[in-house]
């Protein structure tokens, strides 16, 4: 996997899933482009307009504890971020529901402690998924994130969990999953 470079949005406080996708979109069809239009609308007033977040052109999100917390299972949070061009999220900890949704859709949710304290919105970062190393090119700091599990890469390579399982069903190996 090639290195990814781009600018980051750094969360100042908890980012909750019900703010990432506000209630009137909870039942919307799952579609990255559609879901991206209002993604993060409740997180920051600046994003609370159509394409408010997309238009910023961020590639990464950097956050503290409990990213996408609040226990909502809606997948639109993850597809919305993907539609908005986000290629990875770095946080001290993630809420489990969106952590699984992210893995299921192949968007890296990368656990990396306290990066939010050493990055500012607009900083240019470079992420190497293979080594887990993240460099802040704007201030010269380097961070080591947890390396990615093989299963997570396999799912991402397949294009998501549905495709991954579909292949296992097709080749008769689904029963071997353990």
């Amino acid at each position, binding site marked *: 996997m090639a290195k990814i470079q781009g600018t980051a949005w750094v969360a100042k406080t908890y980012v909750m899933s019900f703010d990432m996708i506000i*209630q009137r979109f909870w039942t919307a069809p799952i579609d990255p482009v559609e879901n991206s239009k209002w993604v993060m609308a409740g997180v920051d007033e600046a994003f609370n307009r159509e394409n408010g977040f997309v238009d910023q052109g961020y590639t990464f999100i950097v956050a503290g504890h409990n990213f996408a917390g609040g*226990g909502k*299972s809606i997948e639109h949070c993850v597809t919305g971020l993907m539609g908005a061009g986000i290629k990875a999220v770095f946080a001290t900890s993630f809420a489990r*529901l969106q952590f699984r949704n992210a893995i299921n859709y192949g968007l890296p949710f990368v656990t990396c402690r306290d990066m939010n304290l050493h990055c500012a919105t607009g900083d240019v970062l470079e992420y190497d998924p293979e080594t887990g190393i993240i460099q802040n090119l704007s201030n010269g700091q380097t961070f080591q994130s947890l390396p990615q599990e093989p299963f997570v890469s396999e799912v991402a390579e397949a294009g998501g969990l*549905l495709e991954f399982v579909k292949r296992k069903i097709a080749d008769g190996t*689904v029963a071997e999953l353990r």
Partner: protein
Amino acid sequence: MGMTITEKIMAQNSGRDRVVPGQLVWTDVHTVMTMDYLGKQTFNKLHDLGVTDVFDKDRVICVSDHLVPPPTEQFATMLNQWREAVREHDITHFYDLGRQGIAHQIMVEQGHVLPGKISIGTDSHANTYGAVGAVGNAVGVTDAAVAMATGKAWFRVPESVKFVIKGEWQPWVMAKDLSLYIMGMMHWNGHLIYKSLELEGPAISALDMAGRMTLCNMTVDLGAKNGIIAPDEITAAYLAPVAKGSWSPLASDPDAHYDAIYEVDVTNVGPTLAMPDKLDDIVPVEKVVGRKFNKAFVGTCTNGRVEDFAMMAKILKGKQVHRSVNMLAVPASQTVYLESLKLGYIQTLIEAGVAIDTPSCAACAGIHTGVAGDGDVVLSAGNRNMKGRMGSKNAQIFLTSPAVVAVSAITGEITDPRTFSL
């Protein structure tokens, strides 16, 4: 080294002798729940997988709860599409309007979750299933569809933390108070995020199944992956008439590893309340007595059970809800409704001036019956209080126990039940 109960369940259901925290495993899933709000999307995903038959039509449980009876034309249409999908897949257990209830209540009260097994659902409060010693987890529609197709789901084995709850429950103090108390102790600062939260100790053994459900239910709001209480005689007695399947007892090993062990003496836990907007802003009720509110709400998967109706009826018997307060109580299921009716609780509440609504999530998610408008101050026994949760962003939601809601509804201001004479 031994294993925690959650590790054991994950090992047993993935055909392993042991698992360790952090490991990713595929496990067998005992039941998969989906409900009206996301059910149609789940079946769509199943279709995307190219699968027409679910893995076991007795173990895919479908429930109407968020949208029944439908409040809008749009939701009525959604419900019709949902019913169509359920029928098409010939699902055995479909709890639609008339047999409805909040999905998590149905899953436990109808015996669809069993100790030692893993059940998942497309709604956050699937953590409730830990009350019977199951691993209960919420998933998105993709995971639910995969499980419906294959009977399997992947999990990251969580680290475990243990809460040992000792001491004596004080009068008027309910399991909800302990949940909020723990929330106030832990906050969302990472100590519980993604962990398995195990509850044990004499004060847990003394708790009925309703209280255990409240505690496990709210572990998701604490940020935990699952909440779990090992099965005992109370669990066995509860499950005996309803269990859909067999189960065997299990518990954590004495030498299991915990990231942390916390002790709470419940003797020191009094009526507790979460301030509006932030669930971890917890105060003892005595700090806010006298605050006025205009709406009282008891129901939800957290506090809509017979025991909660019993508590309200005990307080409101022969009393009247204050004229400045609208009080709404919603049983968590038809079974709860009927039982509360037979026991006379419903009559007592109606005589006191409480409105009763048909079982559903009701105002909890701001979808129907009793949504909050601008300027409303709601005293709720639900589980979430963020801005806009019950409707208007300009409403305030205090969260507390059914006992505090009922006592306060009489006086028209937040009241400590311990200072109130029956």
